């Protein structure tokens, strides 16, 4: 399926520089997120394990098996 070139460029710029907008999908995310993890956790959580240059780093967690 075709995705516009301008959108693909915006994604490239976005993931590279970590630009963000003010749009939020969830009002109460505290109810939706795991609270703890350790340094080996590959599910996102309160602890930011990712390098500072990686701003967006969400995980669907369906690989938690």
């Amino acid at each position, binding site marked *: *399926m075709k*995705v516009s070139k301008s959108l693909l460029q915006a*994604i490239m710029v*976005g993931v590279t520089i970590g630009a963000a*907008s003010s749009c939020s999908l969830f009002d109460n995310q505290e109810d939706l997120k795991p609270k703890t993890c350790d340094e080996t*956790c590959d599910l996102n959580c309160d602890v930011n394990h990712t390098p500072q240059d990686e701003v*967006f780093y969400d995980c669907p967690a369906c*690989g938690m098996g």
Partner: protein
Amino acid sequence: MSKLHASIACNLDANILLAALPLFEAEKVQAIEWSFDALFKTREVPPWFTALLSTYSKNNRLVGHGVFFSLFSGKWSPAQQNWLDQLKRLSAVYQFDHITEHFGFMTGANFHQGAPISVPFNPVLLAIGQDRLKRIQEACQAPVGLENLAFAYSIDEVKRHGEFLDQLIAPINGFIILDLHNLYCQIHNFEIDFEDIIQLYPLEQVREIHISGGSWEDSPLIPGKKIRRDTHDDAVPQAVFDLLERTIPRCPNLKYIVLEQIGTGLKTEASKRQFQQDFFKMEQIVQNKQRSTTKDQHTFLPSQPFHLGKPLEDVILHAQQLELSDILETATDYQHAQQCLQASSLANSDWKIETWAPAMVETVLRIAQKWK
């Protein structure tokens, strides 16, 4: 028959998006699967991501894949209602072609925390699962499906999983996501043949297939035994591609074939290239199996309206789930876990802990303690 769509699990994840960009540029990604409830760290969603979702939504090529609803929790929670409310709101924004969730309940006393763990296939769990699936369908007003779980306690559970899924989705005329890597895990972990396991699934109810990679883990209990885990952090094994080739022709109502990988498995350039190669390999299989389209035989929508009363709950089940979660998250090793299980209310119950395979008890300890 529906056209088959080669798709990817696509979330707000830098590594996934960077790996997928060349696929988008090549116009090869025919649909995306979004885990709409996994934006737990990102309070602000960038406009280019919502634009990507909208692009696929407008073309009826966006599917939603929930992770944290905890379908079989014995006690209804405000967080589950919140999850449904959010789904309803998102369904007004995006046109989901369908919505899916995982089989199991989340370990951990605190609802959306932990890992999905299997449950007894008994009338109580069947009723709770059917009740929850109706609520999801009512919230999204779209076809609703359920994914087979990789983890199983016993071979008996492996053999009964397909039939139980079929019973769960029946009241909503729902569908099944058949995760072939999950089947691959069970084929290996329980030494069962693919032909013996695939025939136990209602394949006419399969609307989506997942493929992914995973990892091997040594069993300290059984030297030489390796447990396959569905960790989504590596390339798709050739064996799973082979399963895909064999399974597609058997699923007349299949529409989406989705490649899944988590972002932590895509940090290096080599892993991103491997992801792209896996996608092209999957896409080639899909194209080879493409069939002439006819009007969908199956809408996967409820054939008649249903009434939603108060959410079903079971206090005994809830207590057992809390007890099991606590044991799995705190036991120091297999022997300790067995002692605790045998002294618990789960002993001599429908949980059938007496039949749980030792290597799988070890595995569930690792899973629960990894995600607690």
